């Protein structure tokens, strides 16, 4: 379990980090909490020649709670998300989801930026970010650009991010007062990735529904969201089961995953509705 050797960089600001990425192209990778990347490097499924550690970059930290939107720095850890009282009030669904990720040690290191940039269909934050209609800010050699979470994921480990771009911040619009919310996940054991998970927001005439680990990208469904907005729970579940595309693996065969998806989604909807008002 010894990873391949690499040169280690620890820049103090985003511009210097981008410069290293630009210089080394696809030989270089960004290192955030390392709790997806280091396991991959130990298995030699990744062997970057240059690692750019983001831990010293202050501008990638911080959570700002605005009147209309919440902004979260890429290097904010899952532990920070759970501990932040303003965030728990503004967007309690983030805390509910973060508490279901891995275990305490992983949550102290794992960052929201790494979780959403990784592109692993098993990560919980991407589906949640699609449900919340988040926007990612990407900084590259030519400046910054914004990409919607709903347009960011292309296939497993393929995203709209270019090799020389760093995801710096995530901006999330605050749901209207009275919006119900829930993140529900089934897993084989504590600390495991989802067999199926659902993120649900439901308010007066509005809804948003996304699911995790049931396709090679997170799945946000416009049809499922519209059905739930109209109060049609069965229509919402049917549309979502149509949208997902699970594959058989050690978490079970396709039929089981579809069954689990339906159960998880119904539970999430019921809990979100019970919190709406």
């Amino acid at each position, binding site marked *: *379990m*010894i*990873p*391949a*050797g*690499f*040169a*280690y960089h*620890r820049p103090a600001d985003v511009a210097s980090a981008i410069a290293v990425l630009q210089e080394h192209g696809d030989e270089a990778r960004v*290192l955030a909490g*390392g*709790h997806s990347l*280091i*396991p991959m*490097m*130990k298995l030699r499924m990744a062997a970057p020649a240059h*690692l750019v*550690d983001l*831990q010293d970059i202050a501008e990638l930290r911080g959570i700002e709670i605005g009147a209309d939107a919440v902004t979260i720095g890429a290097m904010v850890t899952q*532990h920070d998300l759970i501990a932040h009282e303003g965030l728990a009030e503004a967007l309690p669904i983030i805390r509910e989801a973060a508490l279901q990720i*891995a*275990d*305490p*040690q*992983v949550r*102290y*290191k794992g960052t929201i930026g790494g979780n959403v940039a990784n592109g692993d269909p098993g990560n919980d934050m991407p589906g949640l970010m699609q449900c919340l209609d988040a926007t990612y800010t990407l900084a590259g050699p030519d400046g910054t650009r914004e990409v919607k979470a709903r347009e960011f994921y292309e296939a497993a480990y393929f995203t709209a991010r270019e090799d020389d771009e760093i995801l710096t911040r995530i901006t999330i619009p605050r749901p209207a007062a009275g919006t119900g919310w829930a993140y529900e996940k089934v897993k084989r054991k*504590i*600390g495991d990735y989802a067999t199926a998970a659902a993120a649900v927001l439901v308010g007066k005439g509005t809804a948003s529904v996304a699911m995790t680990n049931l396709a090679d990208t997170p799945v946000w469904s416009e049809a499922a969201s519209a059905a739930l907005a109209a109060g049609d729970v069965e229509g919402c579940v049917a549309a979502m089961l149509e949208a997902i595309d699970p594959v058989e693996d050690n978490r079970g065969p396709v039929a089981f995953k579809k069954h689990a998806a339906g159960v998880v989604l119904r539970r999430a909807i019921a809990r979100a509705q019970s919190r709406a008002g």
Partner: protein
Amino acid sequence: MSKTHVKLKVNGREVEGLAEPRMLLIHFLREELGITGPHIGCETSHCGACTVDMDGRSVKSCTVFVAQANGAEITTVEGLANPDGSLGVIQEKFREHHGLQCGFCTPGMITRAHRLLQENPNPTEEEVRFGIAGNLCRCTGYQNIVKAIMAAAAELNAAKEAAE
């Protein structure tokens, strides 16, 4: 790959060394520094036997490069003993309540329990179980580990009250 100079504080002591950046913190602690309290169980980020405290957070030292830890302050199970070398409160409670059998998971458990009680000095049993979810034990069935941590919390709180 060339080695880099690393400097960290381990159990209150400044240490320096040369290491390849890819060296894992657990290997640096065990092989370079001879601090063999933290164990290697799975080496795949699952079991928590390698847990150490790094800048006030419990981390799995098999999933941290030594280069990332450069400049950090680390506490291992050795650092949780009393200054005279006798067992610290959490260690003593593990002994008293049979919170270990083979002892392989114990250094990670105790180091994790230390941070948990720093953050939540008065946990419920459920909070203890949730808080040690990243530490696996093959022997005890966890009952006595939870008892030991609850007892340690009570003793630490009583000591704090007495001091006030």
